[in-house]
Every structure is written in C-alpha cells, then in structure tokens.
C-alpha cells in the first residue's frame, strides 16, 4: 500500500500519523507538501491533525483552498480513500468532501482527553478491523469538533449508515454525558456517500502504541493496510 500524508504549514500531527502508518504498513508513507499541485499515486490519502493555517477564520477553511486540495478532491472523486483526522476532518468539511459543519465545542474549551467511541459502520476500508458496536477508547484534542448538519443531511447520514463513530460511555450508550463537544447525535466521524472518505475528530494515531496507554486506534491502520494492499 502507498499512503500519502498531506502536510500543511501548521499541521502538527503529521509525524504522529506517519509513525502509526509506518508501524502498520512496515514502510514509510509519503509526506506531501501542501504547496504541491499533485498527490503522488496513492492508495490512501491522509489529512492529519493540527492547525493547518493557525485555524484562523474557520478551522480548515484556508487549507481547503490550498493547491494540493484541488487534487485531493479530484482523487477522492476517483475513489481513492481519504482519511481526515481532527483538523483533517475540518478540511474535508470545508472542501465539500463531507457535509455539515464543525462548530466551536459546546463547552467553549479546547478539550484533550480519551473518549469512548462506538463503531457504527464496519463496512469500510477504515473500519474493517473493528466489530460493529464495538466500544473503543480514542483521544480527542480539539476546539472545534461540534458536528452540525441540517435535519435533512443528518437524516441522510443516519439513514445511509454514514455515521462511522459515535461518542459513547463505557456501556456504549451515546447519551449527552458521553458527548464531549455537543455534536448532533454524538457524531464523532462520518463517511461520504461512497464510504471512501472518512472524517473523524478523535485521533486513532494517538492510541496505536501500548506505551501511550492503549492500542484501540491500531485496528484502523492495520485494517487499511489489509484492505488496500
């Protein structure tokens, strides 16, 4: 599998995702500069977390307009899987690859903590190594992760099984107590209509190494390698 990680000037989880991919792939992903016009041939494109342009104006808005994103949008259109984590999710939203909006967290604070997630859709290249309904622990670290969409969009996402992950408690209940940021329907990650683009606020790459306190993020990368190799 060939993977490309897009590096924006303010990306700061680029190395973290590079390490996680390297571990699962057994080789280096390609690091692609945002100013490039083209993503080299890839089986997977990853938009990492960080503050692509300081998160000024709106998180992800300026990055969504960078030269490389035109090609990312084109490649996504051809079916190349695209994974956006945290700021990457915000960029996917701003570039129109995923619907809805990510608003300021309901509590107004940046929040960095482990959260529980329920895996809702296992029929994708990203989630094949999870069980449906499985409860995993993955960290979040964001200021603007409050997922919003209008009723029609929300209904479509739910109806088409495009909610990939939902915030939940240790029993798997997706109630208000388990919602860290006010996201509608406790949505933590969504898919495009073909299931080939995933945006998620939690950081699977942060818990893919036992020394960091857990490995619940690792199946995502192992699964990608198996599905895309």
């Amino acid at each position, binding site marked *: 599998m060939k993977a490309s990680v897009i590096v924006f000037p303010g990306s700061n989880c680029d190395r973290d995702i590079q390490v996680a991919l390297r571990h699962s792939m057994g080789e280096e992903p390609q690091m692609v500069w945002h100013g490039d016009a083209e993503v080299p041939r890839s089986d997977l494109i990853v938009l990492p977390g960080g503050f692509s342009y300081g998160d000024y*104006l*709106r998180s992800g*808005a*300026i990055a969504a*307009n960078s030269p490389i994103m035109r090609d990312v949008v084109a490649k996504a259109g051809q079916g190349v899987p695209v994974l956006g984590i945290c700021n990457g999710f915000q960029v996917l939203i*701003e570039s129109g690859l995923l*619907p*809805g*909006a990510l*608003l*300021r*967290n*309901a509590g*107004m604070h940046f929040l960095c903590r482990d959260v529980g997630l329920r895996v809702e859709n296992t029929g994708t290249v990203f989630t094949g190594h999870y069980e449906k309904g499985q409860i995993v622990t993955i960290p979040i670290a964001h200021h603007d992760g*409050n997922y*919003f969409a*209008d009723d029609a969009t929300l209904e479509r996402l739910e109806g088409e099984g495009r909610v990939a992950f939902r915030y939940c408690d240790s029993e798997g209940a997706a109630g208000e107590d388990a919602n860290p940021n*006010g996201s509608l329907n406790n949505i933590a990650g969504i898919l495009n209509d073909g299931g080939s683009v995933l945006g998620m606020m939690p950081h699977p790459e942060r818990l893919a190494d036992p020394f960091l306190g857990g490995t619940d993020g690792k199946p995502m990368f192992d699964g990608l390698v198996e599905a895309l190799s």
Partner: protein
Amino acid sequence: MKIIVKVTLKNGVLDPQGKAIRRALASLGFEGVEDVRQGKLIELDIAETDPEKARAAALDMCEKLLANTVIENYTVELA
C-alpha cells in the same frame, strides 16, 4: 477602498459561542438577554477604486473563502 463584510450564522444553525455569551451575561447579572448570535466582521482594504468592481470582488471572496455558505450568510458594504 474599504469594504465591510459581515458574516452571520444562518437561521437554524446552532451558535455555541452565542449561547455561551448569553450564559455568561446572565451570570454577570444582565437580565432579559433573550438571544445572542455571534458573527464576524471582516474589514478589507483593497486597491480597486471602482465601487462596482470592488463589490463584485468582495462577493467572490465571500463565496470562495470568507463565509462557509453551508452555515453562514454574508453581506458586503462599501465603507
């Protein structure tokens, strides 16, 4: 030429910032604040001197960058 762009959240879009401000105003003892919405005010200084062209450029900037038209409305005023 100076242009003022106002970007506001569409009706029906949740406004967590507005909500937080409202809560904070209440806890400061301001009563009767029924709703608060927060938007952006963007002031542009542009070289263009023709008002029509300036307005057209600003509208284009809003569409392409300044506003997220999925959730936001915008207005453009020449100052």
